[in-house]
């Protein structure tokens, strides 16, 4: 019985972890390329949840088909946000603190807009997969979770290919490593950062689509929670390391789900954070990061 529960927890931890990883990965693309702390990231994840809800109630098509549409729409939103705020913030003395507060303001505004259009009650996506559950041995896995995991893995694979095989992805990683040097070799950092911002917001919203499949209910107030998870995950994986963030997300997701099996509900929430503290103490630069410390 216990082993079944444990396997169940491992599986759902893996699924949630992959999605947390995507949130962290997109967050670290922004922080890495432009040292901007996007505190409104979670609001865009939630906006993705609402976007798929609107798509589904308007067209009745399969929710996963909304991803290309959501991706493009939020890519444009991200580009607009970049040109509105970031060049100005980067001219200040302390972009980190200034951007944290600016995007805290954006997060308040985005939350208020979501609340205005969708009210405070939690919504859910009434799409039912057939069959609704898969049974592997003694373990039951909802089809929605498998679909979310598969799509999540596809996004991660596409992103990895983009970052490591295409010239744009390489430029992006180069900008994370050394923002000054890449300008010397002739890359327009402004355009690159705008594209990175668009990409990150698009990934965040697409992750929201998948989260709407996995979590039965969502409301306009959960943005901050996702932002927090995103930051914990990137600190765990090493700042400025997109793929490290995904591993960090999986570690966090599995720890959280396994803890629910053994600990009371309230304490199990703390486990992910305890792992964070332990990881930081043992390996201050994160699992994969290289950061100068003193």
């Amino acid at each position, binding site marked *: 019985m216990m082993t079944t529960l444990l396997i169940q927890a491992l599986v759902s931890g893996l699924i949630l972890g992959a999605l947390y990883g995507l949130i962290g990965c997109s967050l670290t693309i922004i*922080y890495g390329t432009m040292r901007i*702390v996007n505190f409104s990231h979670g609001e865009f994840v939630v906006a993705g949840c609402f976007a798929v809800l609107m798509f589904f109630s308007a067209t009745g098509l399969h929710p996963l088909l909304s991803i290309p549409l959501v991706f493009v729409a939020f890519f444009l939103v991200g580009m607009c946000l970049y040109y509105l*705020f970031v060049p*100005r*913030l980067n001219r*200040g*003395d*302390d972009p*980190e*603190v*200034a951007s*944290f*507060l*600016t995007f*805290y*303001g*954006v*997060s*308040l*505004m*985005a*939350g*208020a*807009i979501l*609340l*205005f259009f969708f009210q405070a009650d939690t919504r859910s996506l009434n799409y039912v997969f057939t069959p609704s559950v898969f049974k592997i041995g003694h373990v039951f896995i909802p089809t929605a979770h498998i679909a979310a995991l598969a799509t999540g893995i596809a996004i991660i694979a596409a992103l990895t290919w983009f970052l490591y095989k295409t010239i744009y992805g390489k430029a992006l990683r180069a900008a994370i490593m050394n923002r000054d040097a890449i300008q010397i070799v002739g890359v327009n950092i402004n355009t690159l950062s705008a594209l990175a911002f668009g990409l990150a917001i698009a990934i965040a919203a697409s992750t929201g689509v998948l989260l709407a499949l996995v979590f039965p209910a969502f409301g306009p107030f959960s943005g*901050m929670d996702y932002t*927090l998870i995103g*930051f*914990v995950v990137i*600190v765990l994986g090493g*700042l400025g390391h997109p793929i490290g963030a995904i591993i960090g997300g999986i570690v966090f997701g599995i720890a959280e789900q396994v803890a629910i099996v053994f600990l*009371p509900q*309230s*304490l199990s*929430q*703390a486990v992910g*954070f*305890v792992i*964070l*503290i332990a990881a*930081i*103490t043992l390996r*201050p630069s994160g699992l994969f990061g290289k*950061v100068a*410390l*003193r």
Partner: protein
Amino acid sequence: MSSNRLVWTRTSIWLGFLALLALGLGLLPAYGFSLAFWFYLLLWITLASGLNIMAGFTGYLPFGYVAFYGIGAYAAAVTVKMHGLPIWAGFIAAALAGVVLSLLFARTMVLRGIYFSIVSLALAVICRLLIAAMPEDVAGGSYGIALGFSNPDGAYYAMLALMLATLLTVTWLAQSRLGMALRAIRDDPDTAETVGINIGRVRLKAWVLSAVIASMTGAIEAWYTSIVDTETAFNLLVSTKAVIFAVAGGLGTVIGPVVGTVVMLIVDDLIWQHFPVLNVFLLGLVIVLLMMFLPSGIVGSLIRAKPFLRRILF
């Protein structure tokens, strides 16, 4: 005007202003003013100034500053309610709790920038969850603790005293060797170490000082409302508000957090009165505009634009 005389002049103006302020605020209860607004004004000035010691002078932005506030509120409530001691014992317990917790968390200061901020936030979440999970006869569990008595006037005067003590400490810090060492660490840690500043010890002093201010504030708030629970005592909004107020006025300045708190509380109040539906949206907009156009805060930007204002602002 020599530099010493400049410091002397502006410090005397500021201290004179503080004395008048203390007198005016001290007379408020006697004239029957409603204390709610004023109590929280003092509270936020204290928290923003306490945070400024860490964020402004030392360059560490603790998102989880609320951990100290919450632990102070709980230490006071547990001492008074569970052990039947008088409220001053609660304050001592709160101060001690602040010192102990900040020493426990001191290790996190090897992290810099956003790393430090996020870990500090994670620690605040852990504190909340741990206290909520404790048995009810130890820390009230998830329902919190009701003190069973309240003394708003007493709490108001305690808050006033703490605010004045905090502002005097920050004023002293701004011209002391310790404050100079802290700024040196903030601006260039390597050079600071080269000229013989013991980085670990100096920033630990700032950290403990900052923590004790927050834990005392938490204890006084518990006395004021006579109720403590994990959701409000460890509400992350306490940290964010303190950060926003301090930044709005100008991090690293003495007067900044005071000005920032007053301005932002008035703006908040106006928004609530006139646009109740749009209040959160507008608050967000105000924060965005402030950061876009006055990134070094009101006082910081004034000093930068008109250097002669250094004679009175610092």
